[in-house]
């Protein structure tokens, strides 16, 4: 069984995931700079990369949901059209 509210899925993909991704971007920006000695900067860089990569991945999740909703709507639209308008052969023998 497939049940989908494409408007809602699109809203999640278009609004909620990007909002979450923005938070990751803001957190990453806070730790992007600053000097320290020894191993600390490379650890900081590693954590910064966790956050910026997560930001990017969350945006991807949102994009996938939007695409999924769009694809579903398009398929439904095509199916609805195809069903509403019987093909030529219904009315005319095309094989002759």
């Amino acid at each position, binding site marked *: *069984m*497939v*049940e*989908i*509210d494409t408007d*809602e*899925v699109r*809203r*999640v993909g278009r609004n*909620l*995931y990007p*909002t*979450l991704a923005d*938070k*990751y971007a*803001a*957190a*990453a920006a*806070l*730790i992007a700079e*600053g*000097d*320290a*000695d*020894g*191993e*600390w900067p*490379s*650890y*900081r860089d*590693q*954590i910064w990369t*966790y*956050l910026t*990569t*997560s930001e*990017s*991945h*969350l945006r*991807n*999740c949102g994009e*996938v*949901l939007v*695409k999924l909703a769009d694809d579903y709507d398009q398929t439904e639209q095509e199916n609805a059209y195809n069903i509403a308008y019987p093909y030529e052969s219904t009315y005319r023998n095309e094989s002759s």
Partner: protein
Amino acid sequence: MDYEEFWDQLQANWDDLMDLALDKISAEKDALWAVTANTPVAGAIYHIINNDELGQTDASRTSETLIDLESFAERCSDYTATLDQMGAIDAAREILNGDDGVDSDIRLITEGLSTWESGTSETFKVEYVETIGQRKANQYEALGNAKTALDYTVKFVDEYRAAVLDLPVQAKKALEAYDLGSYIGLGTAAIAVQIIGLAAKPLAGLVLAEVEKKITELQKREGTGVAGIFEELRKGVQELEKSYDASLEDLDAKVAEQRDAEFWPDFVCSRPSPDGALVEQSGATSGGGHTGGGI
């Protein structure tokens, strides 16, 4: 105590020490003249003892001891920028875990997708919604580790500043407790004997460097006199510096260990494969698995 206060206090402690040291040196000088029966040799001894370490106040400021002390004090530097960095990490943690943090977004996403049911919906929810919370918790912890490391460097500086400030205080206490009689009885008497022994030969043959070397050896052996106490102070600075280096090295090792132990997939939010991945995988002739194709 901020950096400026620290320096002011260090200067004050050093000045206190120097005031007493110069009094003691004068007393040593008078005693040396007495021991050597007012012969000019006493002047030579005084000159040699005080030439390197103390002498006039201005000269002492450039002495090896003070240079070492100031050089180490500079390493216990201003950590305002480090405190700012710690504040920034706290703010980043608040974004992830505060009242308006990531959890509220996860809840809204979960609610938004609750009515979506299909062959892939459950997989999506498990892989790309439910995992966010745990990854966020790990990221929050990693930020906490980074903050703790900075906090240690601040604590180190505080502790070593206190130790640096204490060195002149302890040296002053040693000077206060220092009995001039023991100096005359042991160190200076021995020095005087050595000098006089050399002086028995033609005085012109007295090689200053050789005398200085003998005095230095005696000072180290006897550990007495103002110069001996200052030698101990200098060693104290060197020991502090070694200890500080070792503390930083230990901290560095722990930070590196933590950094290298963190497993990437536990700290990064997942994403679905991009468009074309299936085709790419189907057409691939070697390597490049579906789950390992990218980050």
